[in-house]
């Protein structure tokens, strides 16, 4: 594979290869939690934080433990355990030392374990054979891109409350159409840079 500058990957994963809008990862919480800008921002921060650190952790575990032992096929189990354990650990540390942050992020942390974006980024990292620096750029960018998308959606949804929507389309239906329009807008970025 050609060496791509980690910074290029970082920018690309925010705009052109946005986790939600082009890879469809993390949709469940994306639709459920995007009602207020403030909570969306909180969730976005929590996701970015966990995403970056678990990807780095998984990188070391995969290349230093699983590959030498020929246990690559166990990566699903190992990754999900790493993510769950990390989230639990962060929850305990944050609760103990940063109670303010805990109240802000606390409710989101358990949700994150099952957020497909987190596992997805780790799996993409393996499939695309990223180096450590590239993985950091990729995970950080994906987290920021995810936050960007969810905050934007929350903003749109607040205006949407006052619009009259056909009966069957109310709720999730119209939300998905809005996401589709956002995805369309993000396709416009694809001229900037492309990664796979």
């Amino acid at each position, binding site marked *: 594979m050609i060496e791509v500058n980690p910074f290029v990957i970082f920018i690309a994963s925010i705009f052109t290869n946005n986790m939600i809008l082009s890879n*469809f990862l*993390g949709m469940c919480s994306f639709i459920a939690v995007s009602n207020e800008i403030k909570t969306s921002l909180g969730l976005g921060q929590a996701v970015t934080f966990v995403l970056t650190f678990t990807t780095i952790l998984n990188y070391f575990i995969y290349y230093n433990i699983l590959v030498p032992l020929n246990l690559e096929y166990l990566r*699903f189990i190992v990754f999900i355990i790493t993510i769950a354990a990390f989230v639990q650990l962060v929850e305990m540390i944050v609760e103990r030392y940063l109670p303010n942050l805990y109240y802000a992020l606390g409710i989101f942390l358990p949700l994150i374990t099952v957020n497909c974006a987190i*596992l997805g980024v780790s799996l993409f990292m393996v*499939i695309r054979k990223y180096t450590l620096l590239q993985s950091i750029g990729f995970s950080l960018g994906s987290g920021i891109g995810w936050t960007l998308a969810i905050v934007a959606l929350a903003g749109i949804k607040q205006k949407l409350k006052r619009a009259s929507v*056909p009966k*069957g389309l109310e709720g999730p*239906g119209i939300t998905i*159409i809005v996401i589709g329009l956002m995805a*369309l807008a993000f396709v416009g970025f694809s001229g900037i840079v492309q990664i796979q």
Partner: protein
Amino acid sequence: MSGDSPKKIFIMGLWKDNPVFRQIIGICSSLAVTNFMINSLIMGLGLTFATAFSELTISIIRKFTPKHIRMMVQVLIISVYVIMIDIFLKAYYPEMSKALGPYVGLIITNCIIMGRCEAYAQKNPPLSSFLDGIASGAGYTLVLLAISFVRELLGFGTVFGFKVLGDWWTNWTIMIMPPGAFFVLAVVIWIARSISLEDKKKEKEVAKA
């Protein structure tokens, strides 16, 4: 407890409680793999397999699992089946395995499986849980096929890779790109919800009369 009848389970899974358009869960993967019908079919079968057997296993051991670690146990059981699917695909359908990429692994975090395990398999006997898994998986597969039918037909003019529309057809590139997936899914949800609204209206009228 004898569990629900198979017929009821299937109606619930396919229509009344359809995971995708009724509960809006598990749509991450439903969008990503719907550019070709064959991808959707394999993905749907994989998910059905994983859901059915995870529910079966969880239902069998439900009485011995301590309550507070059950989530972890569920995730591990699901991962085992997903790894089986992954290895199977790699061995027999390497092309397919490449096309689906990370989305096979993402079956683990697919909310459908976790949701059904937690909501159904924890409380019901093994056989009905197994059937429930098949029904939910089938409901998911149907929606996937419906979405990918529209996307593949409009995007490439093909169905399951066979050319259906002639040369006069201009491919709608938008359908293959991510936005197309969102629009088609939204329309599917719209149609399904409108039909169920009609049903509810009728039920009310019958009740009044």
